[in-house]
């Protein structure tokens, strides 16, 4: 064991002991009246408000979605921007040396390669699975209000379907369906959709991302339903960006930025 590892072990053990000592002051596991769940006397936890009032405010049964896209909409918007920025960073780090822009001569390998039986099984399975996965992803995005789901989860599932295409055949097969220009475009459009909802509220003389004001635009029954529909729009924006960037991360990492051959 090297000297640095011994010091690291000492530091980690001391930190761990301090944290474990602090743990004994924490509320018990599953305690519904812990400060995080119920607040302290005299000051109710904000999560209590979310559970009791958010359906009345937004008409969205999935409380996680309503908190994510409405109460914490500003936060979620910049989380999406972080993902976008991460995608751009990977593009800048790896793409700079990749020599992209040149035409890719390599032809797409078919799903079925004669004589390679493992390829036939994998290719057929993936070809059957991919449409189902994509349909499920769209369901998760669109049904995020009523069931577990939303833009982030659905976007990742949708990106996974493209990654499966790339894994079962090769990267070109996936890039033919979602090309580099297109995923960059989709990533930008996603952010613009999200920010657009915010700006639209400002145009209607309200606060940024105050969806209730969109009632005259969306022609809904009341400001609550306007919030509900705006959340769907915002989630779709998130899904666009997440899908594009997750696939971009895979495509760039697996081909060292060249977007050729892949794994």
């Amino acid at each position: 064991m090297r000297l640095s590892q011994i010091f690291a072990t000492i530091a980690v053990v001391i930190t761990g002991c301090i944290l474990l000592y602090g743990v004994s002051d924490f509320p018990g596991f599953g305690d519904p009246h812990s400060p995080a769940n119920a607040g302290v006397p005299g000051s109710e936890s904000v999560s209590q408000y979310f559970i009791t009032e958010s359906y009345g405010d937004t008409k969205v049964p999935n409380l996680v979605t309503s908190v994510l896209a409405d109460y914490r909409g500003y936060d979620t918007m910049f989380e999406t921007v972080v993902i976008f920025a991460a995608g751009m960073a990977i593009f800048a780090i790896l793409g700079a040396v990749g020599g992209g822009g040149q035409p890719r001569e390599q032809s797409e390998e078919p799903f079925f390669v004669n004589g390679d039986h493992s390829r036939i099984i994998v290719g057929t399975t993936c070809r059957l699975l991919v449409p189902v996965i994509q349909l499920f992803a769209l369901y998760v995005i669109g049904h995020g209000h009523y069931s577990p789901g939303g833009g982030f989860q659905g976007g990742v599932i949708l990106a996974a379907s493209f990654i499966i295409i790339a894994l079962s055949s090769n990267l070109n097969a996936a890039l033919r369906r979602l090309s580099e220009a297109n995923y960059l475009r989709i990533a930008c459009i996603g952010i613009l959709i999200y920010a657009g909802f915010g700006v639209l509220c400002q145009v209607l003389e309200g606060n940024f991302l105050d969806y209730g004001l969109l009632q005259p635009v969306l022609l809904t029954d009341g400001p609550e339903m306007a919030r509900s529909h705006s959340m769907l729009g915002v989630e779709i924006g998130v899904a666009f960006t997440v899908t594009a960037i997750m696939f971009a991360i895979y495509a760039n990492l697996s081909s060292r930025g060249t977007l050729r051959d892949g794994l």
Partner: protein
Amino acid sequence: MAEFFQQSFHAHFNFWIYVILMMIGLWALIAKNNLIKKLIGMSIFQTAIILFYVSLGVKAGATIPILDPYGNKEQAAAYAEESDPAKGKNEKKGTEEKGDSSYVGKKSPNPDIMANPLPHVLMLTAIVVGVATLGVALSIAQMIFKEFGSLEEDEILEIVKGGNVDD
């Protein structure tokens, strides 16, 4: 000592696991020589924090924080128990809404029957952002490998130092 251990561990085993996972990650970040192993440590560290947040929001016997539009019997009973029927009718506009959803028209759900939604929201974004930042880290590692032909920290340091002498 044994008494402390039993008392602390029994009620707080989720926090114990979080601390242990976090320390494994921290140790890997400090002590490991290989950059990819450091990144694995970072991911373990991140997972520990996600576990910490999610386990904070757990309520014993509570369900997921989604109101059931198709009428969950237990939930409906809990609402009925909580809400004062005479008061509940006038308070919310929900009474006028069409549809017989179990929660429409009821005063409000009892917070104790649903898990805390806030940690779920925070961790939902943290997981996806974690994947994206891990991607950035891996791409930097790839470039380092391309530049130095190694992912071992000491070898890279040697090359960097040697290169300075040459210049």
